């Protein structure tokens, strides 16, 4: 032992062999520095959420007037009040009629929507107040093809509900009561935008970061250093997760202060949900990066993942209104669960008790994408 130490000049010691958090952090820090320097991506970070929020935010601004809507009110007290409030809203032109006939007329384009307030509605509300149930449904059949119109219509209904339930002093419960599947389209807005923006930007930033490593030749060079693939992967993930945190903060700030979104539930749970959702997409980006050869292809991955998400994840149309054969697909679209989580926490004030399934699914997505990323990034000495 001592002999070895003595001849130190030409000593050949096996150093830097173990997994090193230092190297992981070197990659993470480098990733953040690159991101900080990249004006284009940085611009995207500000422009994309703003643009998307503006599009959806405008949908709630009530610029549309006199939308023909049919209402089938079978209820008494609360149903009447909602109907009355709706009738006073200039955005909609209310006609009374039969729900099932109304559905056909919506299909024909005579009406934009038909609303059904079932006979037991008031009863349900009272039951909720008594604590016997948590569900009270209003059925809405609407033309979801024109987001602005849809937005105005949903806004009018939302306001009517607000006013009605506000009168009865159960304004907090109303989110929970009317935020069920039938109404998931009602709150397309900030929560959905957060989920969407996270997917869109994280996939772009993540894939580009890793792709640049390939293009600049640094990835090959890294193979000639003690860096392990697992350290590299973890470094990307930590760096990208920090970037995701900045994105989440920005989107929340925009949402709350510019567009007046409210967070009914626990803010920390919301941040946790956003991070978990972000993490899943960081892993997805690391995985997808294997399939892009240049930056342009990398950028194309974003719409490639974002557009199906938008269409099938409950952003444009509530998942429940999807064609029967497409509905099951919404269960494998990550955005579906992101929207569930963000809507649940922000609008309905839900906690872990109500959302554990969605948390579980997003957690499982993390694991799946993580495994895919590990499998594809490992042992990739250039061949």
């Amino acid at each position: 032992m001592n002999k070895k130490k003595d001849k130190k000049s030409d000593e050949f010691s096996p150093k830097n062999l173990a997994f090193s958090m230092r190297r992981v952090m070197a990659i993470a820090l480098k990733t953040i520095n690159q991101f900080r320097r990249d004006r284009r991506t940085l611009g995207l970070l500000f422009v994309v959420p703003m643009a998307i929020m503006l599009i959806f935010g405008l949908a709630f601004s009530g610029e549309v007037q006199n939308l023909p809507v049919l209402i089938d009110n079978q209820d008494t007290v609360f149903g009447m009040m909602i109907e009355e409030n709706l009738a006073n809203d200039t955005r909609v032109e209310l006609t009374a009629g039969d729900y099932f006939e109304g559905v056909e007329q919506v299909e024909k384009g005579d009406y934009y929507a038909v609303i059904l307030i079932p006979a037991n509605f008031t009863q349900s509300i009272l039951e909720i107040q008594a604590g016997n149930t948590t569900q009270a449904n209003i059925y809405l059949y609407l033309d979801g093809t024109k987001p602005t119109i849809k937005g105005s219509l949903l806004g009018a209904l939302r306001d009517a509900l607000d006013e009605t339930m506000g009168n009865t002093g159960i304004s907090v419960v109303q989110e929970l009561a009317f935020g069920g599947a039938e109404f998931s389209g009602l709150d397309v807005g900030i929560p959905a935008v957060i989920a969407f923006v996270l997917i869109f930007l994280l996939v772009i930033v993540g894939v580009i970061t890793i792709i640049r490593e390939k293009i600049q030749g640094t990835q090959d060079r890294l193979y000639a250093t003690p860096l392990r693939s697992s350290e590299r992967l973890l470094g990307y993930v930590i760096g990208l997760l920090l970037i995701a945190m900045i994105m989440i903060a920005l989107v929340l700030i925009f949402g709350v202060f510019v567009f007046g979104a409210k967070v009914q539930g626990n803010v920390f749970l919301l941040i946790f949900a956003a991070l978990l959702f972000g993490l899943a997409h960081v892993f997805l980006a690391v995985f997808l990066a294997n399939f892009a050869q240049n930056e342009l292809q990398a950028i194309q991955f974003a719409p490639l993942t974002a557009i199906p998400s938008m269409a099938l994840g409950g952003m444009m149309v509530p998942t429940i209104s999807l064609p029967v054969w497409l509905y099951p697909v919404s269960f494998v679209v990550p955005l579906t669960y992101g929207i569930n989580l963000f809507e649940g926490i922000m609008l309905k004030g839900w906690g872990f008790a109500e959302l554990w399934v969605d948390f579980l699914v997003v957690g499982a997505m993390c694991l799946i994408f993580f495994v895919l990323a590990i499998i594809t990034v490992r042992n990739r000495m250039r061949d």
Partner: protein
Amino acid sequence: MLATEIEYAIETQDLVKIYKTGKVQAVNGLNLQIKKGEIYALIGANGSGKTTSINMISGALFPTSGTIKVLGHEIPRNRRLITNYIGLAPQDYSIYEDLSLEENVRFFSRLYGMSKGDFEPKFEELLKILRLEEKRKALVKNLSGGMKRRTSIACSLIHSPKIVFFDEATVGVDPVLRSFFWEYFRSLKDKGVTLVITSHVMDEAERADRIGLMRAGKLIAEGTPDELKQKHNAATIEEIFIELSEGEIIDE
């Protein structure tokens, strides 16, 4: 450890590389023996297989067949161990364009587990030698080609490796600076560092201890500059190369 008994820094035997994409036999039975503390120049036209060889030896590229030993350890099996003792400055800079010069070098120093205290003096030394002192905070994308080259060299030397590979390191570097480079290469050699330098510029080779002339993935001649000139009765290395590649057009 065996370290003291090993005479060669690098040994390759029947090294072959066939890229999957191109069906090109980029390296075609290369046998190299490079001694410790030697400045070895691998010379050959573009496409002769220099970069491919260097990448395989440094552990960045998987060989198709043949054996590689670096400091007595088999590559790629023991490459993680060996990477601590080698520095590679690839042909295409391979540094981060959107980071500053200093951030680049610091990044690589961290990969080798260097502490801040180890990094600072070594970095200052390299800046001085490579004449980059004024550019330390500059983003790499704003540097000239020659400066990028030197930044890349700094990244490959920051951890004081025992073997360094400079792939076309002196391309695009002005003649005055090139002289300084060679002076520095000699000083590294004096400290026992082994240097492998590739170039497609023949006269670059004259300054090396030993030269390997490469063509079509093979060595076609090897020796000290004087040995080679004597044997082939030529005044320059370029003449030898032309003589040996007689009648063939070198693919540029």
